[in-house]
């Protein structure tokens, strides 16, 4: 375990691959060795695709040697949340209901990463069907937080957050219906980007809620998120939500700073919320001051009450998810984990009027946010009101009071990115989220990159116990 290759970003590793000072095979073997040595204590992977990874890596090495460059992910190992279909590779949704499911075709994102020369390391733990967790009554254990394995890594892209934070891969794909990219990013101290609704194809990703689902990356750095977006973004005529818009140059502006950028802060969203951690609030205040020192204009504003956004999103999610699972909930309820089942059945108790009222409110809330973003380049708020909770904070099967504040931007569809802001006194990551105008990911990334540079947190890594030691500590 002497290798420090895991500390290389996508950009840094890519430069070495192209310079011929590093091979994808060496990079991939280092990842596989690190997973083998350390993931037993974290359970971030539900399947490691060793043969596929080494074959992908060998192909990338041959291509790069021949002068063929397929883009920023060429030769770079990555992971996929286990709701992304992968041809001939098991895709379980972390559920007993799909534990033997082997798709015939890749999801669009998996195909684009494959076509871009990426190296698939395996499939990552998720909350069951991207909704129920943390649960221990499933075919696979829940992923744990690399900064402290007694704490959750967030969800539902739990394995994605944990794997990136642990240095198993530089990037992992997640999905975000109410915060499932940004929550794990926040709790694991990595960057997580929920793109604008419709920017990245959802085809081949098991749906949770059709009008709230987003696919996006979790990565060590803002730049690595931008590089990934360049590979996975494309109009998909077969995804009904896919936006036919020009693909921006996502890395453009990362080094421009924030001079003249206008940032709005709805402080009431998080500072007045029950259970808000003073450390989270202080870290956001510090970030706002940092941007101001760098030349941005930062102004406090008000938005509609957070509870309205949350209720609107929860009702839509419940209704749409229930429609997907209705038959299985009626015929085989005990095959779902207790927590998944408790959440999914809620949609069966809603009326048609409930859903239409939620859709009417959704328009009003999107209009309110768009009015704010007509005057500002971005909105800053908390990703979560607290550091990662402990597993012991959850009572199996009972509703989870997630302290994340991410649902508003699933409701409105705006791009939102969680970035680290520091660490709590307990040594767990703190974060905030940056929300931009629709399809203005470059501005969100630019603001995040400026903060990342100023805070200099990307070089801090969790201390991981080897597999045997972690298991001994747990027993």
């Amino acid at each position, binding site marked *: 375990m002497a290798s420090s290759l895991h500390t290389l970003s996508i950009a840094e590793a890519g430069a070495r691959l192209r310079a011929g000072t590093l091979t994808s095979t060496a990079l991939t073997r280092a990842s596989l060795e690190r997973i083998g040595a350390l993931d037993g204590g974290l359970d971030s992977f539900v399947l490691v695709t060793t043969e596929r990874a080494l074959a992908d890596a060998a192909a990338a090495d041959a291509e790069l040697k021949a002068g063929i460059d397929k883009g920023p992910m060429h030769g770079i190992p990555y992971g996929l949340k286990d709701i992304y279909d992968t041809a001939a590779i098991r895709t379980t949704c972390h559920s007993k209901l799909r534990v033997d499911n082997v798709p015939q075709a890749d999801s669009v994102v998996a195909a684009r990463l494959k076509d871009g020369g990426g190296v698939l390391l395996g499939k990552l733990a998720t909350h069951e069907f991207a909704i129920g967790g943390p649960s221990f009554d499933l075919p696979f254990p829940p992923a744990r937080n690399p900064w402290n394995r007694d704490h959750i890594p967030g969800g539902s892209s739990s394995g994605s957050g944990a794997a990136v934070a642990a240095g198993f891969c530089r990037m992992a794909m997640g999905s975000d219906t109410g915060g499932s990219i940004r929550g794990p990013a926040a709790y694991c101290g990595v960057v997580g980007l929920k793109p604008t609704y419709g920017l990245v194809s959802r085809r081949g990703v098991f749906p949770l809620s059709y009008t709230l689902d987003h696919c996006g990356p979790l990565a060590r750095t803002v730049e690595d998120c931008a590089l990934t977006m360049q590979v996975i973004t494309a109009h998909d005529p077969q995804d009904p939500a896919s936006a036919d818009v020009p693909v921006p140059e996502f890395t453009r502006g990362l080094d421009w700073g924030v001079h003249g950028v206008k940032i709005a802060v709805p402080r009431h969203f998080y500072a007045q919320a029950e259970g808000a951690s003073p450390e989270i609030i202080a870290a956001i205040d510090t970030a706002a001051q940092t941007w101001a020192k760098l030349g941005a204009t930062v102004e406090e504003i008000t938005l509609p009450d957070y509870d309205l956004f949350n209720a609107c999103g929860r009702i839509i999610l419940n209704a749409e998810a229930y429609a997907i699972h209705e038959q299985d909930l009626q015929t085989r309820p005990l095959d779902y984990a207790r927590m998944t089942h408790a959440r999914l059945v*809620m949609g069966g108790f809603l009326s048609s009027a409930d859903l239409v009222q939620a859709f009417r409110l959704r328009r009003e809330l999107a209009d309110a946010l768009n009015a704010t973003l007509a005057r500002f380049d971005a909105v800053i708020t908390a990703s979560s009101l607290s550091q990662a909770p402990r597993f012991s904070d959850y009572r199996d099967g009972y509703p989870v009071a997630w302290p994340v504040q991410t649902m508003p931007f699933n409701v409105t569809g705006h791009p939102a990115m969680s970035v680290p802001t520091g660490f709590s006194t307990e040594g767990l990551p703190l974060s905030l989220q940056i929300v931009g105008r629709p399809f203005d990911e470059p501005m969100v990334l630019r603001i995040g990159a400026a903060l990342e540079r100023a805070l200099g947190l990307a070089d801090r890594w969790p201390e991981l116990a080897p597999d045997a030691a972690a298991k001994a500590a747990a027993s």
Partner: protein
Amino acid sequence: MPDDDLKQELDAAAQKAGLTIPPERHDAILVSYKDLKRMTALIRQPRAAAAEPSNVYSLVPRR
């Protein structure tokens, strides 16, 4: 609403939806149901009839 009444309401709603709630999962689902009712009340606000939902769509072809 008293919990017994809420429980009866949940049981009726489950029956209407064709759902069987296993007894050992009932208490947890009742807690979620109470929260669901809070949210459905919260989203009902004064609105004009012309306030259309977000998913009204256009038949103009995309480029």
